[in-house]
């Protein structure tokens, strides 16, 4: 039965993985149908985990379903910037001692899971919206809230609705100074802030083969900004090479059928995309960099689970090398994981950052969520490679956030105003 479903030519990725993984159902499900999935990996972080722990206590189940499959990650405010956060971190560590679940400190959850655990065909629920990043290697990975996470800890299962799917065909080649982040910003601008709500996005087309796992992770992660449930790159030779390099194996390699039906299909020539910048307030208010160039900034932030990987820091270093961050502007660079941090130090990136006058921090979500290491004051302006530019996201509700690739943020740090990265590459 499972093999029949895997070979079914009429199913999208989402339909197929749900049909394959739904326990003992033996039926073809279509968009709108509801079923229950077994969970392979459940993650909560330090701003959703404490509430899940509280709810789990209130539910009153004596034990978690499988401590080896539950990960608590202290990443958003690491290390604790104040006493209130420290107390919630303490609550998490105590829960880990009591239940034997896994504890990770000081790497952003999505990057940690990608580096160490996520495999194709896996069912991953995270109490964090950007969990959909796991789709970069063909996993069913999506975000939920704290109470549902507590229910997963108790039972190892969760209900899902089979989503409609969107197909995006990527063609062409990226130009100099244009990156994965610009592709996904361009797409969000096309479909709007809720254009992917409840839906599964499949990234296809000849240009996918040129995208590294890090670039796919950026796109899968940032797809959340149009509300998606899943954002999928199917297994291909790049994925297989990556899995070999980290010594992990697929659970299932799911490929959408050639006759699958999609709610929408988009063709994107990535060769026509330029550096993109989202204006403050909404993630879909995207402009070409030329339209906002020259806007004065107080801070440039390069980091987050969207764009804090080694690939991103390499580009930032290339641009910052031999330059100084403009006096009066702060440039905060925050790697996505301990591994990225270590690699940046070992390979001389840290030195370039420090010589430029940037601040190079430990791995954390930090400034992206306005919790520490780069919080914005009243009326301050920031350009950031993080995923969201919402009111008060990084600090004062009067502060303003422009979103861009790490390259555009780095070039802007040098000039103290929004700048076109192509001049530096």
């Amino acid at each position, binding site marked *: 039965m499972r093999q029949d479903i895997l070979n079914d030519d009429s199913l999208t990725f989402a339909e197929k993985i749900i049909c394959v993984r739904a326990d003992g*159902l033996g039926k073809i499900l279509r968009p709108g149908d509801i079923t229950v999935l077994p969970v392979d990996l459940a993650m909560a972080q330090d701003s959703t985990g404490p*509430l899940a722990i509280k709810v789990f206590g209130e539910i009153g189940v004596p034990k978690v379903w499988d401590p080896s499959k539950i990960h608590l990650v202290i990443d958003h405010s690491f290390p604790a910037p104040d006493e209130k*956060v420290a107390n919630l971190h303490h609550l998490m560590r105590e829960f880990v001692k009591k239940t034997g679940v896994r504890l990770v400190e000081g790497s952003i959850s999505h990057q940690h899971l990608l580096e160490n655990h996520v495999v194709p065909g896996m069912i991953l629920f995270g109490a964090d919206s950007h969990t959909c990043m796991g789709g970069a290697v063909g996993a069913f990975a999506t975000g939920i809230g704290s*109470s549902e996470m507590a229910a997963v800890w108790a039972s190892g299962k969760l209900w899902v609705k089979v989503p409609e799917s969107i197909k995006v065909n990527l063609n062409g080649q990226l130009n100099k100074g244009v990156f994965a982040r610009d592709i996904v910003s361009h797409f969000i601008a096309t479909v709007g802030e809720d254009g992917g709500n409840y839906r599964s996005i499949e990234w296809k087309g000849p240009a996918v083969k040129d995208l590294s796992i890090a670039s796919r992770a950026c796109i899968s992660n940032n797809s959340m900004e149009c509300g998606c449930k899943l954002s999928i790159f199917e297994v291909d030779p790049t994925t297989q090479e990556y899995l070999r390099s980290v010594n992990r194996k697929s659970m299932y390699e799911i490929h959408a059928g050639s006759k699958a039906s999609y709610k929408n299909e988009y063709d994107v020539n990535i060769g026509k995309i330029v550096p993109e910048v989202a204006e403050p307030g909404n993630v879909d208010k995207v402009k070409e960099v030329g339209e906002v160039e020259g806007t004065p900034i107080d801070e440039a932030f390069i980091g987050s689970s969207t764009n804090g990987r080694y690939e991103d820091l390499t580009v930032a270093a290339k641009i910052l090398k031999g330059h100084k961050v403009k006096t009066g502007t702060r440039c905060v660079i925050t790697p996505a994981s301990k591994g990225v941090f270590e690699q940046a130090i070992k390979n001389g990136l840290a030195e370039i950052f420090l010589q430029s006058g940037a601040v190079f921090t430990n791995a954390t979500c930090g400034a992206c969520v306005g919790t520490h290491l780069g*919080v914005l004051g009243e009326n301050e302006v920031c350009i950031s490679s993080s995923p969201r530019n*919402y009111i008060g996201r990084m600090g004062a509700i009067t502060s303003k956030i422009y979103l861009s690739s790490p390259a555009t943020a780095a070039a802007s740090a040098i000039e103290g105003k929004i700048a076109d990265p192509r001049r530096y590459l």
Partner: protein
Amino acid sequence: MTAPSILKGRAWVWPDDVNTDIIIPFRFKARTNDPVEMAKYAMYGFDPEFYKKVKAGDLFVAGKNFGGGSSREQAPVAIKYSNVAAVIAESFARIFYRNCFAIGLPALEVPGIAKQVKQFDEIEVNLQDWSVKTRDGSVHPALKVPEFLRGLMREGGLVEYYKRHHNFPWETLETKAVAR
């Protein structure tokens, strides 16, 4: 706690795309586990003094994509503990919507509703019929929701449901094979 089936109250009308950073900023929600404390920061992005102005039994009416962005359950919790009785929107972001049912905050999707209601209109939510009655007396049906979710909401969310039934509402679904 089982919700009454008719909720009458005055409506706070919000625009499209009200995200969870507006509903409760990270730096407040990630520093407490107390829902009463969270409620002090409800709608902070629009009005830091909202918590002083909201009255028990008030209702929210919003445009499309209410609750977009972060998965933070503290967003619907802050609304619920502001004693807002229900949230009605033209559409909800996926995780926010799931969270509402999980914590027992009634959430009704009613296409076009934001244009039918003015700030502080007295309106009525019928949880039995799953509809909204606006000031002029017209009744607007909300989009259908699977019965197991409405049951979950009626019983006050996952904690209350589990205490009563010793299972989660979807665990009984599994055996019935809900495929159409």
